[in-house]
């Protein structure tokens, strides 16, 4: 199985020495994120997010399917998030590594289980026809912190996406093409986003670790928060132990960062809306 070669010892010594002086290799402060770049594609619901050299492309598509018998009013949201070897040589096709599994499950939890998308609003005819949304994530390049980048790309794509306008006359459903009637955005409950902190022994935590920092750290902590200061998911898979008091400080920083991230996404969507032609008339 291909595996990343461990970084040389001097790299580790240097990173630890720099961090103890409060410096990071790319000139960031310990609790500073890399700049978020969002780029929307030609189609609705297509968004590429870049954090430094990490890049994830998210695409949302919608189809009409029959709902489950026990939940006739609910639509579906499926997330496809297989990491291909395109992201890094450490990933392999068809076999998921431990990291990949963690990322996939964390995304599932922070997008689907937090009920970010109102699934009842996806219902067309109860028990017969509902929308099925499919969120496909393409991990283009892994330079650390794939999870935060993927969650940003997903939320931006979901908010960018618009489903075709439909009309129900009796039992018949008419789907209007975008040329006929303007498509409608999804109804969202809230915008949960991930922030990841990396921990090193006897050092304060750092936000948004790069690939090198990720491979050297003793543990990471991922929190999914929304702009309403709610903790949606908290995941700490192994690594060094943490005191409860430390957790509060980290969450406060997280809330602050998530608000900034939501503002960035809002701004990018607003800018895209001003240049994109959606309305028919």
């Amino acid at each position: 199985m291909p595996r990343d070669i461990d970084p040389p010892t001097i790299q580790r010594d240097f990173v630890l020495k720099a961090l103890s002086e409060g410096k990071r290799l790319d000139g960031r402060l310990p609790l500073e994120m890399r700049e978020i770049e969002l780029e929307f594609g030609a189609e609705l619901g297509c968004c590429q997010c870049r954090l430094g050299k990490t890049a994830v492309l998210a695409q949302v598509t919608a189809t009409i399917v029959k709902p489950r018998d026990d939940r006739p009013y609910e639509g579906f949201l499926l997330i496809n998030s297989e990491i291909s070897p395109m992201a890094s040589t450490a990933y392999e096709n068809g076999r998921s590594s431990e990291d990949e599994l963690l990322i996939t499950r964390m995304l599932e939890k922070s997008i689907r289980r937090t009920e970010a998308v109102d699934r009842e609003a996806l219902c067309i005819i109860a028990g017969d026809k509902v929308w099925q949304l499919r969120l496909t994530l393409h991990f283009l390049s892994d330079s650390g912190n794939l999870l935060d980048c993927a969650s940003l790309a997903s939320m931006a794509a979901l908010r960018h996406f618009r489903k075709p306008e439909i009309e129900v006359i009796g039992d018949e459903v008419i789907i209007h093409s975008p040329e006929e009637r303007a498509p409608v955005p999804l109804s969202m409950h809230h915008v949960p986003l991930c922030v990841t902190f990396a921990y090193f022994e006897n050092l304060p935590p750092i936000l948004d670790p790069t690939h090198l920092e990720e491979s050297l750290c003793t543990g990471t902590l991922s929190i999914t928060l929304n702009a309403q200061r709610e903790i949606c998911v908290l995941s700490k898979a192994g690594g060094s132990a943490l005191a409860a008091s430390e957790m509060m400080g980290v969450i406060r920083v997280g809330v602050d960062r998530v608000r900034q991230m939501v503002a960035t996404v809002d701004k990018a969507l607003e800018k895209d809306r001003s240049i994109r032609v959606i309305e028919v008339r």
Partner: protein
Amino acid sequence: MSQTIVLPGDRLYLPESSFVTLGPGIASSSRSGNSTSDSLIFIATKLGVLSSVKGKEKARIWVETRSKRYIPAQKDLVIGTIIARHADGYRVDIGSAQMAQLDALAFESATKRSKPNLKIGTLVYGRVTLANRDMDPEIECFDPSTGKSEGFGELKEGLMVECSLQLCRQLLKPKYPLLLALASQVKFEIAIGLNGRIWLKASSVGETIALKRVIAGVNEGKVKVEKDEIVKLVKEYLA
């Protein structure tokens, strides 16, 4: 000379091989089926810009490419990480498809009784001695003609930076302004590997990080290689 872009398989019209030294990206083969002349034909094997330098006796010609994957070639200076030890040597990752072999005796004044003991994860600077496509590459950490280390061997402290193979080649040109501009601001040691790795060591962590950021910026094409701009950036990063 005007710039010529060549594609793999392109025929190159060069003077007779006795007047030129062929570099990477050019292959020669004898013309078959033509009895009138036994001259060689030259074919490009890489995509890139045909470049040449006039030497003392022979002109040197090669294809300048932009690539990330290092392909070992004899006499290349490389930086590698030791990833395994065995009885008579080490296995070193030099960024190529195969791991390189480093003989335990290929160091300055190494004998069977006393040879350096390098740990896994150590960074070494060496020279490729054997590179062909059917065998693992081999490297050495001394100059066999003098028996001295000549700067090769273990790299202690400092920081390793990864960059494009092209930037590494350019850094080795004596007239390339980047290192001169950096050196006018900060005192540092540097080792440049042709496998896309640079090792840096300045007197403080802050200085090393500033140098690393300038080099990374140049590598991504965000920073122009002009003395004033680089000097300004170093000062900004150090502040």
